[in-house]
């Protein structure tokens, strides 16, 4: 399950969330209940009884087993692209982090962070297209809820990037914050563009004229606001000129502007004091809308409060609030502004609120805790935590003040990797995450990889190739052994031998070779002769396999009528005594045709050896066969002794 390993720190006054209870159809549990694990998030719930029925009536129970699985949103086909593409960026990030150990690599991190954001953007666009084309109501709802999820993710990621990954000149965050607000909470933008396009005097006739002007002021688009004011029929009046003048003369800070923050602060405060005095002179009393604009640009809390209800969230006015109260604010100084804006209206707190608040307060631990609650199966938490970790921006202490940052990062990646490994085609992606988290990641990969269902030989080869890529030799061997066993139980001995040799497993090779030899004793046919004759050093995996290979070679020699060589090989097989017990009969009887060949092929010494073995193993042959063999041996001894008798070393 992709549930957080990290509980909320109790000292934060937030108890661990109560566990979710899943209710299952009740029919299955009249008695007790048990759980059998499958791979990953699959398990089977069954009615587990610990006792025996006391009553003797053997009534058939209505018991059912439930095969259950955790729902994984990321496995929705439309999100496949997100998973795959973010994997590529993740892997680049790991490389960049490796490089960052020797040199600063913040620029690269920023680039990758943007890459993640553009992946999210594409994902949202795909979801939007799909939602538009979806006819089924339930499916459409699902897609819309995914869109909500990824909107929030995009929004938080962008803010995180500003706060922790981007390099902000002079640490003056305002321009970035305004950009964030404009991008994620666009409001009145289209109306403003329409009004400006039309360029008609008297635009105030349009009902959302003033909302648009205010919206532009609050988003810090002062120029647009001024241009809109020019469209008002009374724009030539003194009141309008005064406001326009105030907006125009607002000092804007720029790091490269050549003035220090101190100087800027002084001139900005001076400007605001002027605005304030104009306001208190009541010259604008006849134009309440203009008065409101002035009150906003002097940072009047009640003015902001009065317009808050026009926006769906407090994020919309955050930029304006910072702009007109503390434009010099640095990144770590935004907590107060967030609190002020959030407090303007008694709106119910949403999850997104909590995340943005925690982020602006600089409480990354809380941010990560919150984003783990998003139902994206940890995609966001994993990737964001990882990039923040590599940027060196994450420092999380547990209650004993030990730094658990890397453990947090690792645990998220491990969970995410394991999750993907369950999927029938995303498993190799999951593997790449696990491999980036040694040693535990590789061990987990090993456990899961070994249990990947192997439907075909090709799949087996694929698993082996992936395992070898990460040095998991044990997995490769285990898969080969299992394939070998499968072929064996299906009676496909050639396949079994092939897999045993591929896995270089001695035990599996022995099992397969034994099966082949037994098969030969019963059916007089050898499997996979080509393989056995060309296997080379793989034959050394087991004595039985070696024996099988040599025996196969004997058959080849015999077939090509190289009787002398065949006989020599057979004698060496007999004398080396590595033949399994059940194979002696076959081996001894194989000497018969050679003993009776026209030309003698066994020397008298060979014949003695065979005789000795025959007498030692006579129990393996039935009497008639043994007698037949004895006769043949005696005859061969006679003719070879005669022939050799002419030589020097006749047997004594």
């Amino acid at each position, binding site marked *: *399950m992709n*549930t957080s*390993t990290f*509980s909320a720190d109790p000292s934060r006054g937030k108890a*661990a969330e109560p*566990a979710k*209870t*899943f*209710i*299952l*159809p009740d029919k299955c549990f009249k008695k*007790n*209940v*048990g*759980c*059998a*694990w*499958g*791979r990953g998030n699959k398990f*089977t719930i*069954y*009615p*587990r009884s610990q006792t025996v*029925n006391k009553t003797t009536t*053997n009534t058939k*129970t209505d018991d*059912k087993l*439930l*095969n*259950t*699985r*955790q*729902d994984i949103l990321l496995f929705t086909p439309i999100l496949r692209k997100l998973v795959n593409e973010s994997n590529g960026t993740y892997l680049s990030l790991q490389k960049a982090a490796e490089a960052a150990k020797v040199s600063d690599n913040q620029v690269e991190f920023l680039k990758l962070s943007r890459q993640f954001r553009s992946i999210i953007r594409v994902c949202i666009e795909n979801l939007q297209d799909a939602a538009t084309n979806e006819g089924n109501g339930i499916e459409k709802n*699902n897609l819309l*809820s995914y869109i909500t*999820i990824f909107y*929030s993710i995009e929004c938080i990621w962008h803010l995180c990037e500003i706060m922790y990954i981007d390099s902000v000149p002079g640490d003056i965050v305002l321009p970035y914050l305004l950009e964030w607000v404009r991008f994620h909470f666009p409001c009145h933008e289209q109306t403003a563009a329409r009004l400006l396009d039309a360029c008609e005097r008297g635009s105030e006739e349009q009902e959302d004229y003033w909302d648009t002007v205010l919206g532009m002021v609050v988003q810090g688009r002062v120029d647009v606001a001024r241009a809109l004011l020019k469209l008002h029929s009374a724009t030539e009046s003194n009141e309008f000129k005064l406001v326009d003048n105030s907006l125009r003369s607002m000092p804007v800070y720029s790091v490269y502007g050549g003035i220090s923050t101190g100087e800027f602060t002084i001139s900005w405060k001076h400007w605001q004091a002027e605005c304030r005095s104009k306001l208190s002179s009541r010259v604008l009393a006849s134009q309440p809308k203009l008065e409101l604009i002035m009150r906003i640009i002097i940072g009047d809390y009640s003015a902001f409060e009065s317009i808050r209800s026009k926006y769906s969230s407090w994020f919309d006015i955050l930029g304006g609030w910072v702009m007109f109260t503390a434009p010099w604010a640095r990144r770590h100084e935004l907590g107060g502004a967030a609190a002020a804006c959030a407090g303007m209206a008694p709106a119910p707190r949403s999850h997104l609120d909590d995340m943005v608040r925690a982020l602006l307060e600089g409480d990354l631990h809380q941010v990560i805790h919150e984003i783990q*609650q998003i*139902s994206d199966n940890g995609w966001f938490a994993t990737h964001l935590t990882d990039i923040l970790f590599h940027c060196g921006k994450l420092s999380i202490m547990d209650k*004993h003040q030990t730094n658990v940052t890397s453990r*947090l990062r690792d645990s998220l990646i491990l*969970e995410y990797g*394991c999750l993907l490994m369950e999927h029938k085609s995303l498993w190799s992606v999951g593997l790449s995450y696990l491999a980036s988290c040694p*040693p535990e990641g590789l*061990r987990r990969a090993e456990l*899961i990889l070994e*249990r990947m*269902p*192997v439907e075909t030989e090709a799949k087996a080869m694929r698993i082996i190739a992936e395992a070898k890529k990460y040095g998991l030799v044990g997995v490769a061997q*285990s898969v080969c052994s*299992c394939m*070998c*066993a*499968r072929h064996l*139980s299906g*009676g496909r001995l050639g396949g079994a031998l092939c897999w045993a040799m591929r896995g270089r497993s001695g*035990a*599996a090779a*022995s*099992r397969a070779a034994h099966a082949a030899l037994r098969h030969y004793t019963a059916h007089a046919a050898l499997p996979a002769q080509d393989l056995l004759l060309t296997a080379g050093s793989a034959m050394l995996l087991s004595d039985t396999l070696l024996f099988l290979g040599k025996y196969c070679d004997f058959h080849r020699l015999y077939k090509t009528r190289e009787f002398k060589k065949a006989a020599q090989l057979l004698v060496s097989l007999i004398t080396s005594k590595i033949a399994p017990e059940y194979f002696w009969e076959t081996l001894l009887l194989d000497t018969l045709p050679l003993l009776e060949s026209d030309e003698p092929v066994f020397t008298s010494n060979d014949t003695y050896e065979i005789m000795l073995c025959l007498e030692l193993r006579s129990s393996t042959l039935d009497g008639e066969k043994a007698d037949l063999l004895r006769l043949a041996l005696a005859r061969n001894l006679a003719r070879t002794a005669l022939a050799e008798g002419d030589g020097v070393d006749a047997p004594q």
Partner: protein
Amino acid sequence: MITVLNTIDTGHEDMIHDAELDYYGLRLATCSSDNSVKIYDIKSGTQTLAADLKGHFGPVWQVAWAHPKYGNLLASCSYDRKVIIWKESGEWTKLYEYTGHESSVNSIAWAPAEYGLILACCSSDGSVSIITYSQDGGNWDVKKIPGAHAIGVNSVSWCPAISADLNLDPLSNKEASKRIVTGGCDNLIKIWRETGDQWVEENRLEMHMDWVRDVAWAPSLGLQRSMIASCSQDKRVVIWTSDDNVSWTPTILNTFDDVVWSVSWSLTGNILAVSGGDNKVSLWREGSDGQWLCISEVAKGLGQTPNDERSTL
């Protein structure tokens, strides 16, 4: 959200005592008081009865799948004092029947595949048997621990091969000693180690105040830590941890409302499933601070599964 993939109507004529998914999670074996063992193929959302194994003459308590590198093998143990090892080659047949116990055989567990084909069995006669298949002879060799727990042994579990000797490098140390953990009616948990051709008691863990019902050694994640979960009729679940497999520290996971019958670790050992007399399965995991948290519960209910949790954030 948890989705029910499929429902399997077992057709058992009496109560089910155990269900076990095979190595790949594609087959499910169940056993019952109706003396039978059944095997279902549960590929791709459908299920078919693959075998109905009849060979026991009493309630069958537990089933266990062997590693597939030994072929398709399933062991079952029963009240009839027998352990049967079933093999599939074409169809399922009895490969071996072990009758060395004098009372009900309560629990069985295959050793880590690295060690070979070895099965541990424990019985109400108080003893534990370790039966080993020998490849060359094609026969089964039996070693017995008599009087392992007074009154009876309820559960047995193997130490993973990789963590058998924590202070040794597992890769270079193939000869690491084998260990098992057992839980019994004497309220004790005992750890046994193979030394030479004997199994000796290495440790006894005392904490439970009533019969120990189940013990489960956690899969190893390559870390220098071993973990055992135990549960008991005293309604408690205890997690035992060790850095060296010699000294063990207990942590009480939770005290439940009813007797706890079984504990089982997920494949990668990160989640512990606990089930008992309260008709619930609860899933637990360890937080970074060593605290155990219940992350989910599965309970019986009135039918419908709520579908609103998925919504947005």
